[in-house]
């Protein structure tokens, strides 16, 4: 009985490890696409932030500190690819991931339904905080125009792509099947 339990625990850990590797691979692929292919597929000059969508979906589905670390890693990687100073975007990712993880505890089982509207809200929050800070730093004006022309369409675009990521995170990685990170 005890041996069988240990085997089951080992099997679950292995599965979680491979799931995490797969999600990391997806993240790298998304960042690659985001910097190369997606700008050519922009709709009304809006380009989706796929890494953010993945982080939100992963945080809602997985929960726990792993999701926080994953989000920080994704944020840092995105900043590294964009160039310039690093850390702020990762901090925003951490904050949003934290909220998602907290929400996922309360809305367990309904996170799949909640994901698209949450993606929309969180994308708006992220973009407003990020670009707002940048505008203050650069001493720029016209944030309203950016909100209407870029942030809002991008948030819609992200929302449209969200179900794909919910499906990916849920089915491909098998995270939900292997049990939520309850640590």
């Amino acid at each position: 009985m005890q041996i069988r339990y240990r085997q089951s625990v080992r099997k679950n850990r292995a599965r979680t490890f491979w799931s995490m590797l797969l999600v990391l691979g997806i993240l790298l692929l998304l960042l690659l696409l985001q910097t190369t292919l997606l700008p050519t597929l922009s709709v009304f000059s809006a380009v989706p932030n796929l890494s953010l969508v993945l982080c939100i979906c992963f945080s809602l589905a997985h929960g726990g500190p792993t999701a926080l670390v994953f989000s920080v890693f994704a944020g840092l990687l995105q900043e590294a690819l964009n160039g310039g100073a690093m850390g702020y975007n990762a901090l925003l990712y951490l904050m949003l991931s934290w909220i998602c993880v907290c929400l996922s505890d309360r809305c367990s089982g309904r996170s799949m339904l909640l994901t698209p509207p949450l993606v929309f809200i969180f994308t708006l929050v992220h973009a407003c905080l990020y670009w707002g800070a940048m505008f203050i730093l650069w001493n720029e004006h016209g944030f309203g125009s950016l909100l209407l022309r870029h942030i809002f369409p991008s948030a819609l675009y992200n929302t449209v792509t969200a179900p794909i990521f919910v499906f990916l995170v849920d089915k491909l990685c098998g995270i939900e099947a292997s049990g939520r990170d309850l640590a």
Partner: protein
Amino acid sequence: MKKGNKRRVVAVALAAALFAFMGVSYALQRAGRTNPVTQCVQTLFAPLQRGVTKGSLAMRAWMDAWVNGKRYLEENQRLKREASAQEQALMQAESIKKENERLRALLTLREGNPQFEMIGCEIIAKNDGDQFFTLQVDKGAESGIKKGDVAVTEQGLVGKVTAAGKNWAQITTILHPESVVGVRVVRTETIALAQGHFLEGNQNALILSPVLEGALPVAGDVIETSGLGGGYPKGLLVGVAEEIKRNAAQNQDFVIVRPMVEFQKLHAVMIIKM
């Protein structure tokens, strides 16, 4: 540790680490140095990004060709037709421009020589091909052209009318081996005869002979008609002395004269009525 507490600890630790990282990153940026993390990530991603971009471009081109292939083909054919028509129009315009220049030059020749009665003619045939020995013009006896009339252009002497029909005339050029023109070297005033000469592998020329020793022209001397013999009016440009050679058999010097007229570009002449 409770799951909520552990999460909180991790979050606070991450936030603290990120704040520290942010500080370092901004300091590096201020110092004008690239963040090593950025450098590393971008170095790793660059080949992948290049590959994806190239792939996506190739795919887009393929998709574009697949979707719009028929339209592109039609457009291509239409553009080819248009280009061809425009090319023809351009060539026509060029031809008209050249003809205009030619006619203007002939008009200048006529106005500059009021003592001569001149008739403008178009060359309709070059009977000896690239030898330019005989030419045929589009006007003849009907226009008053008769055998013995002289053909000229603004460049100089072309030849003499050797046959004239109702609406055509044949000109034997000065390059013809049977053509002999009485000429004069402008600088030395030496009188000589210029005869057509067939130069192998080269453009035909005239030979000036006999020329007395001591009166030999030098290369670059201008040769014009002398008017002697009555065959050609005086003062028409014939050519330029190019080379002086010695005929060992006859123990005599002769001069090769390059004609003024460019026979290969000749399209119209003026006939001076004699």
